[in-house]
């Protein structure tokens, strides 16, 4: 951790106003503004939630494409609003003709450090437009991320956030998914107490046993096969079936997001696309199904390995609490196919369910909860 050290402590999140304490009408001393961020730094999309410490308020909630656009040389004045040199997220994608697009992450880890740093600055700007707040961030990382990848995140955040904590994404997803208002209710099955989370993102699919203690390395499996890999296979399949189709990777991803499914073939699946300016209908039932079913083949062995690692006392309840989140949870039939496969293999009444419509926010929500609960000595200080 070369970027970290213990330094003189920062000002506490809030200090009392001596003037107010003394009851005098003098103006209060300005309190240092502090803000907490929960950040799901994803390969394709990132979710940012922010709020003040000591409350449950969420003041910023955004999901943005994880992309930075560097404006190309020679673009005439006025083409880019404000003549800025760097665009982010949707703005960068809208101006894709005029910028060099860089995705800071590949397969869940930072692949382009400078773009990652610029992206972090953008995250900070979104959370605190004043630019003056002292910001602490909990950032999700794929399960079992190597130290080198963690260090890259710290370096990208150096000078942007004052303190940071890196926590595995599937555990944060469990924290985010937990309904805190019901934790003490007798009928509520707390996902943090006994569950198995499958977080399918763009770069990695992460599986994690969450059983009331912090998951060890053995409780987590990260598979470098997820949404992007499906896009790649689908794109190759399309090129074989429809040579010279001219579809970009982004178009292929949009087709996948709209029509992805697993299980038996849903042929015919006719999809209208525009190729070379002309509308054309492609039959993509098999191409999409084949690409997505590979994901099941990759995930299933990891799922059964983690089930096998749980104790006989807990496994029956665990089988009732298998939760899929992340973008991959939007693949049609993924819950029923996994559940049926477990049943067919003799597992006792398995129940696989989807996290729900907030699937893009659970990791960041868990990260913000962790940020609010973290003890002062648990934060890692980032020196400028």
């Amino acid at each position: 951790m070369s970027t970290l050290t213990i330094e003189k402590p920062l000002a506490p999140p809030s200090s009392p106003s001596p003037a107010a304490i003394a009851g005098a009408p003098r103006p209060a001393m300005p309190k240092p503004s502090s803000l907490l961020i929960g950040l799901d730094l994803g390969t394709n999309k990132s979710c940012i939630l922010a709020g003040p410490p000591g409350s449950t308020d969420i003041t910023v909630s955004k999901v943005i494409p994880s992309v930075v656009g560097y404006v190309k040389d020679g673009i005439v004045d006025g083409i880019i609003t404000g003549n800025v040199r760097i665009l982010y997220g949707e703005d960068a994608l809208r101006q894709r003709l005029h910028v060099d697009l860089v995705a800071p992450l590949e397969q869940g880890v930072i692949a382009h450090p400078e773009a990652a740093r610029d992206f972090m600055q953008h995250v900070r700007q979104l959370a605190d437009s004043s630019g003056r707040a002292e910001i602490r961030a909990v950032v999700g990382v794929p399960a079992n991320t190597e130290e080198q990848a963690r260090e890259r995140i710290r370096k990208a955040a150096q000078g942007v956030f004052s303190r940071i904590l890196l926590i595995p994404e599937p555990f944060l997803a469990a924290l985010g998914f937990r309904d805190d208002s019901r934790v003490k209710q007798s009928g509520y099955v707390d996902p943090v107490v006994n569950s198995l989370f499958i977080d399918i993102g763009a770069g990695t699919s992460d599986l994690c046993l969450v059983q009331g203690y912090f998951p060890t390395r053995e409780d987590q499996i990260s598979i470098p096969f997820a949404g992007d890999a499906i896009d790649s296979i689908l794109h190759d399949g399309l090129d074989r079936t429809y040579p010279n189709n001219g579809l970009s990777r982004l178009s292929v991803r949009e087709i996948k997001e709209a029509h992805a499914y697993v299980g038996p073939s849903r042929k015919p699946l006719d999809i209208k696309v525009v190729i070379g300016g002309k509308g054309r209908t492609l039959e993509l039932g098999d191409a999409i199904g084949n690409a997505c079913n590979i994901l099941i083949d990759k995930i299933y062995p990891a799922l059964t390995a983690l089930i096998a690692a749980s104790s006989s006392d807990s496994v029956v309840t665990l089988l009732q609490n298998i939760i899929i989140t992340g973008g991959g949870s939007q693949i049609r039939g993924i819950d029923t196919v996994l559940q049926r496969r477990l049943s067919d293999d003799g597992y006792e009444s398995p129940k696989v369910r989807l996290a729900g419509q907030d699937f893009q926010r659970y990791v960041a929500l868990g990260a913000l909860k962790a940020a609010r609960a973290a003890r002062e000595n648990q934060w890692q200080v980032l020196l400028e």
Partner: protein
Amino acid sequence: MTLNALVESLRPLEPPWSEVGRTCRRICLLRAAGRYAEAQRIEDTELAAAAAKASREGSGPGPEADARLATMLAGEAERVAAAVAFAEILAPMLSERLGDRAAIHAQAPKHPHRGPGTGAPGGVRGIADFIEEMLAQDRAGTR
């Protein structure tokens, strides 16, 4: 912080500011434990009352009392942070020197029986406890 300075810092303050000092330390300890809401509540009630009382019994409310309170709070915050850092450094050193790795492993259990809810007895564990386990695993190299 040297041992002498530490002892000096722990020396009780003279009345009427001793109560203010104790309350400041409690607030800083709560903040260090991530219990901001509780710290804020004490700050708004007990500290406000203690400081007002000390001001009245001293030279009265004014810039001097304000400055003294601000200095006490800043001093306590620094002391608590230094103590936390000191403990972070000392604990693993002691553990290693005494050949007793049990302390670390107790924080990063292997959970051989892998039962659910094996944490704190009789209740839901706090998120900070999970983070502590994660950090202990990092220190022990088990993650």
